[in-house]
């Protein structure tokens, strides 16, 4: 059975050329989640990086601000780059903005490289210093360890780099996917208008069908009135037949012709008197008179 387009209209996007509000909210939720992940990761890393100072508690708000700034930059820069590229692609912005987006990408890469290198360097320093400098009695095995790929701090640094790069790439892809090209949006808008027109035509067809149904229902009622009148006429004529048979039988059986005619006259007068008020008023079509020549 076809879907009833009146009670359940097809779902259509209310606006064209815009991301739906739900998608918008979801994009920002995703970005904020990425920023939070980066913040937690960088907070750990920077605490390790500055462990010699953080054990004295000398870096309070500064570290939080730096951490937040870096995590914001890691997520936001690819987003802005993607939006710039999209606008350049759609012709909204001039081509010179490509240079700006390239610079932003380079800044992003530089931040990531700096973080990674600092993390590796901190690992090397900590290893060569032999633990926390503030602790007395630490084993003073000074091994001038250089850079090593398999050092735990190096591995951790690259893992962190991977997470940061992933979050940046996700924000880039999200921005690239949600900012559709303008041409697609225009095509979608035209398709949307065309679909709305088709829907309107089908609704017009449905309106004609509904009018037809109303008219047929009214017609059915009119026909029913006619049939009702016919049934009334039939019933009254049957009653007349019964009366006539009764009168005939009385006339046959009765010895006295005067009395018989009296009886017959009485029956007939009863019927004629009674008939008009038995017939109820009918709706507009004229009621048939059952009293006349039905006999």
């Amino acid at each position, binding site marked *: 059975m076809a879907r009833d387009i*009146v*009670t359940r209209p097809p779902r*259509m996007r209310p*606006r*064209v*050329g815009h991301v739906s509000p739900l998608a918008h909210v979801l994009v920002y939720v995703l970005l904020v989640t990425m920023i939070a992940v980066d913040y937690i990761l960088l907070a750990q890393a920077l605490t390790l990086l500055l462990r010699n100072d953080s054990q004295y508690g000398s870096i309070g708000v500064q570290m939080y601000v730096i951490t937040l700034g870096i995590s914001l930059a890691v997520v936001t820069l690819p987003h802005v780059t993607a939006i710039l590229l999209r606008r350049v692609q759609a*012709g*909204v912005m*001039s081509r010179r903005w490509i240079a700006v987006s390239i610079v932003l990408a380079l800044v992003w890469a530089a931040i990531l490289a700096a973080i990674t290198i600092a993390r590796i360097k901190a690992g090397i320093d900590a290893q060569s210093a032999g633990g926390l400098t503030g602790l007395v009695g630490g084993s003073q095995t000074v091994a001038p360890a250089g850079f090593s790929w398999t050092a735990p701090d190096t591995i951790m640094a690259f893992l962190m780099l991977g997470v940061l790069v992933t979050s940046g790439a996700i924000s880039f892809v999200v921005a690239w996917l949600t900012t559709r090209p*303008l*041409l697609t*949006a*225009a095509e979608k*808008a*035209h398709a*949307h*208008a065309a679909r*709305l*027109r088709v*829907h*309107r035509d089908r*609704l*017009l067809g*449905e*309106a004609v069908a*509904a*009018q037809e*149904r*109303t008219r047929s*229902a*009214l017609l*059915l*009622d009119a*026909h*029913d009135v006619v*049939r*009702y009148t*016919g*049934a*009334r006429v*039939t*019933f*009254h004529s*049957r*009653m007349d*037949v*019964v009366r006539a*048979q*009764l009168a005939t*039988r*009385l006339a046959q*059986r*009765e010895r006295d012709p005067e009395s018989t005619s009296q*009886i017959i006259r*009485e*029956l007939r007068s*009863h019927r004629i008197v*009674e008939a008009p008020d*038995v017939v*109820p008023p009918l709706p507009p079509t004229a009621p048939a008179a059952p009293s006349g020549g039905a006999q």
Partner: protein
Amino acid sequence: MPRRERLKDYRVPRTGGLRRRLLWRLRRMRHAVDVETLEVFEHELAAFERAGVADLERQRTRNVAAASARVAEAQAREELIRRALDRVETGIRRADLDAERLDAKLAGHDPDFHTYA
């Protein structure tokens, strides 16, 4: 029109039983037909006629109820369709407006982005 959608037919009350009863009673009291007996007969006839008319009235009322329900349903649907048409007209106007705006953007003169580019 399919049979299911038609209103129910009228069933005219049958008078055979009444006639048989009256004739049988007449035959039984053949020798005592007087005005009182006639009154009784007439009363019975009138009662039967009234009952039959009431039966027909009942059927008519039932059919009227069915037909008016059908009419009301069809008119409600018409009203629904009219409202949906209004909404679709509004939607078409808005969609055309959107399409025009996007086309203008594509053509390069967009009021929204002049400040950026």
